[in-house]
């Protein structure tokens, strides 16, 4: 039995014309404790939807999520999400955003203990001095540091990363990825990440799950990434194995695009938009 089990999960949306559109079908993925698994696929394959289902923010049309031996279908503090758009509460300061999460996760702590703990996480992501700034006053990179601090501070069983670096400029992205690796090495959380970025997936993951394109996407295969940790970006990119894995994944993604019928390019569109587009054509 694995720590996190995605058991035959399917997701369908109801189209405006009343027909069900299946985004992905029968996804089965087992993630071990302290494992870092990344899902890669084109837009529209439903990988973010799957992440939201694991988080309990959306419901599966079929199948189940089993975490630590128990089925779960609602959101909870045992699964924290780092969102692509950060999802910080804009009326709260950096400190207040993290503090809200810490108070929620550890209600039994007294004021002093909670304060020190929050401050420690702020320092950990290098935001001391910006505690009282609101998210709007921070750059994308700094905002996602807050997002990471908030998620790690809760000490969840599973960390869910939904394209966490997609909205961060390229120069900062590497630094934040290193930040994530450092924090993950220290905590050994179980991580499920979703991304477009193949290099990012190889650098961070123990295993990479490849989704075919939606609609009716399915989990095609998982690729093991067995580089020793801690990994240094400059070193592993030199390895022949790195090039092989990268080539394999990119080839897979290319084949997926080719399989799709003409005039039905789902790339760059999300599943719902594709559904509406199909509905409009019918």
């Amino acid at each position: 039995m694995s720590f996190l089990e995605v058991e035959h999960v399917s997701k369908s949306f109801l189209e405006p014309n009343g027909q069900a559109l299946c985004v992905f079908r029968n996804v089965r993925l087992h993630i071990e404790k302290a494992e870092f698994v990344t899902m890669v696929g084109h837009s529209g394959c439903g990988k973010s939807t799957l992440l939201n289902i694991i988080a309990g923010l959306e419901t599966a049309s079929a199948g189940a999520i089993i975490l630590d031996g128990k089925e779960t279908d609602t959101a909870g503090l045992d699964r924290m999400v780092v969102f692509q758009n950060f999802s910080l509460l804009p009326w709260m300061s950096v400190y207040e955003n993290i503090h809200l999460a810490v108070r929620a996760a550890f209600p039994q702590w007294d004021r002093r203990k909670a304060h020190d703990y929050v401050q420690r996480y702020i320092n950990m992501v290098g935001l001391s001095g910006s505690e009282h700034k609101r998210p709007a006053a921070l750059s994308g990179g700094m905002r996602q540091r807050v997002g990471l601090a908030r998620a790690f501070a809760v000490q969840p069983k599973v960390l869910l990363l939904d394209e966490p670096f997609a909205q961060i400029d390229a120069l900062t992205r590497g630094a934040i990825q290193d930040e994530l690796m450092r924090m993950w090495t220290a905590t050994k959380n179980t991580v499920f990440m979703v991304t477009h970025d193949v290099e990012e997936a190889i650098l961070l993951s123990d295993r990479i799950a490849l989704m075919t394109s939606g609609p009716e996407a399915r989990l095609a295969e998982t690729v093991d990434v067995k580089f020793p940790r801690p990994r240094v970006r400059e070193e592993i990119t030199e390895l022949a194995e790195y090039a092989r894995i990268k080539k394999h994944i990119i080839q897979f993604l290319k084949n997926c695009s080719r399989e799709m019928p003409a005039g039905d390019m789902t790339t760059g569109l999300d599943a719902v938009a594709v559904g509406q587009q199909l509905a409009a054509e019918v």
Partner: protein
Amino acid sequence: MDQLAAISERKKAILSSLALLAILLAVWQLTTKPPIQGKAEGLPGPVAVAARAWEMISDPLYDRGPNDKGIGIQLGYSIGRLLVGYTAAAFVAICLGVMLGLSPSFYRALNPYIQILKPISPLAWMPLFLYTIKDSSRSAMMVIFMSSLWPILANTAFGVAGIKRDYLNVSALLQLSWVKRLWKVILPAAAPAIVAGLRISIGSAWVAIVAAEMLIGGTGVGYFVWNEWNNLQLTSVIFAILLTGFVGVVLDMGFGSLAKVLTYKE
């Protein structure tokens, strides 16, 4: 450079305003006839109104029986009624608005009634309030309540229904209790819309209280206007009209600064 330009723009605006005021006052003074043997004919001029205004402002709190009270006392009555009716309306409207905003089906169920009740002039309720409450001052408060209710309700429901899914997701992930969910997420997220509603309705409530007090009589700025009209004291009427405008601006400015504090940038 831009700052300098902005300053001179502002100066220009102020000077234009003052010039306009001077022209208006001059036209007003020239078109009104001076009193003949102490008896005014036609509308009183600005000088007469200013003299009366000074008289009333310098002794605002005198009380010489039911028909002769200082303007400060009348204003106090009006603002008191406003506060009671308005606060009650804000409380009810925000509570109800949050519920409507969070539940689309509840919103749809209640919407037809809201649409019918909303366009009713708050003063039209007056006879029913007088009949049921049997107290004219409380009836006036209820008129304020009715006038304030709809803008706050509509804005709150709109603001809560439009809260970004992300914020609600965060509150779901953190398993916030409903009290925390309300105070830390829903109300702050919807605050700009709610305050906009509060700001609209304090204006309409102030408009309504003057009219309501004309009907109920006894005390308040509205009653004062009507009473002075009966006494043919047009200087007092004009002064009171200007005063209600001034109070309205102050009330609006209060909510304007509240809006500034509660607005957030994403």
